[in-house]
């Protein structure tokens, strides 16, 4: 088998394993999809009246729902990657990784399986959430192309965060650590335009919010779905995604290979 064929074949096997894990660990899968749904309801029905009123003449709870959907989709992404980190750390702290390392398989396939599995999980969570949002009365003005573009940007950003989560899972000394570190991503999401317009924030925070990736992604997705202005946000979102992907990928591969050398046991 050529190296490429081997990588494809082994990655497919590892992807199957990862998907089975998601089915066998339903509590985590449900939590990953359930959390964003609960937050969506919370944002729309608890905060939505007040926050929606500030959205201008056409404001209100419905307008806030339209505003907040991209933010909630990003919660789904951030919460799935927390699972990625946990799964990777579970693999690395268990004995199974040593078994894989003593087999003639494509080395990267272990990580690729997790990445593809998480990506599928993200897309499933996003699909469910969009369905729930429509059920609550979400208005999208987007045509099929705009939908595709919005999902594409979300997926690209998800890949970036998933690789980051893989690296964090590899860097973690324990599964507990791995489950905590991606929390930072949720915090970053709250410090973006995901839930409130950055214009309402104090100066220092506003500047931070405007220049961080979650704002770029949230604004592009919102623009594509609801027809709000996008500006250069899409380009910035794509640049961020590719940049984070490359750095996180290199970091992850380095951690994965280095683990081999040390370890006096």
């Amino acid at each position, binding site marked *: *088998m050529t190296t490429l064929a081997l990588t494809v*074949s*082994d990655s497919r*096997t590892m992807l*199957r*394993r990862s998907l*089975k*894990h998601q089915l*066998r*660990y339903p509590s985590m899968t449900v939590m990953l999809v359930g959390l964003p749904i609960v937050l969506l309801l919370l944002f729309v029905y608890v905060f939505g009246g007040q926050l929606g009123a500030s959205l201008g003449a056409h404001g209100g709870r419905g307008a806030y729902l339209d505003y907040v959907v991209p933010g909630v989709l990003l919660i789904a992404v951030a919460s799935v990657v927390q699972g990625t980190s946990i799964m990777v750390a579970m693999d690395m702290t*268990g*004995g*199974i990784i*040593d*078994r*894989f*390392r*003593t*087999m*003639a*398989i494509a080395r990267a396939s272990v990580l690729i399986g997790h990445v593809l599995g998480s990506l599928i999980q993200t897309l499933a969570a996003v699909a469910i959430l969009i369905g729930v949002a429509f059920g609550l009365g979400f208005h999208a003005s987007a045509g099929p192309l705009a939908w595709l573009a919005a999902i594409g940007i979300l997926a690209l950003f998800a890949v970036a965060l998933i690789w980051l989560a893989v690296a964090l899972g590899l860097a973690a000394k324990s599964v507990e650590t791995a489950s905590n570190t991606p929390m930072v991503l949720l915090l970053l999401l709250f410090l973006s335009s995901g839930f409130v317009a950055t214009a309402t924030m104090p100066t220092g925070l506003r500047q931070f919010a405007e220049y961080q990736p979650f704002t770029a992604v949230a604004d592009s997705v919102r623009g594509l779905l609801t027809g709000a202005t996008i500006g250069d946000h899409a380009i910035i979102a794509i640049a961020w995604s590719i940049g984070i992907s490359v750095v996180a990928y290199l970091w992850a591969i380095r951690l994965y290979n280095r683990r*081999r*050398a040390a*370890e*006096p*046991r």
Partner: protein
Amino acid sequence: MTNLPAATGIATRNVRKSFADHVALDNVSLAADEGTILALLGPNGAGKTTMVRILSTLIPADSGSIRVAGHDVVTDADGVRAVIGVTGQFSAVDNLLTGAENLQLMADLRHLGRRAGRRRVTELLDQFDLADAAHKLLSTYSGGMRRRLDLAMTLVNQPAVIFLDEPTAGLDPRSRRTMWQIIRELTSAGVTILLTTQYLDEADQLADRIVVLDHGRIVAEGTPAELKGRVPGGHVRLYFADVHDLRSAAGLLSAAAPDEDQLVLQVPAYGTVDSVRDLLNKLHEARISVERLSIHTPDLDDVFLAVTGSHVSGQPHQDRTLQGAQQR
């Protein structure tokens, strides 16, 4: 790199490995012919696991040459990986899958093909008595079942060389016997096995050759019989109620060294029923009463004691099986 015979089996020459300032392996040369079992025997920290990790391509040696089934572990690591199977000290199973799925995962990663893979999975489930639990999640498996599955996963591709790192650690005596039986059957199929163990009887039972490691060095090697031949024969220990009887017995049975503090007399003997009966008759006729006795046949602990000056586990001899069983 010195050249080693290209033959099958396992051959290493002058393997060295240090972690920081700790020397884990110091010039270790091993050889196991095809179809034989080589046991690495030694206490915790002797370097056994490090040796297995090097042989199975998990970590590189600092120096030395290593060939496994004719492949060099440095220049042809994937060649080695394709023909070996490793069962480590820590269970290397996927806890979120069923037994059958774990085996299928291995079959897929070994690229057996769909039909051959399925057939092999069924075969192994039957062979390892796991067919009934095949579709149950691993969380329902007992320790012995997990260990059997672990070994079955190692055998999916019918490896030529198998490394077993403490394969029976933590198992109850019955599961241990089952595991021994399985290991013996493997060699009859021509598989070469390197196993590590802290259990002396395990090495004695299974191995064709034993290498005794201590602090990363080989301190003794040979067949179990050769090693046992290097230590003095067995003895009977007689325990007395008072020093009087002890002294009379010591006078009666020449060549005995009485221990007056413990009231114990050690007499050379071979543990056969006849020799013990003769001994007791002799004492009875002389009207010397013995409280109790224990019979000690030479085993590998004596070898270890003879070559290193300390017991394998650092514990009194009698406790070692129990102590071994509690290791995990």
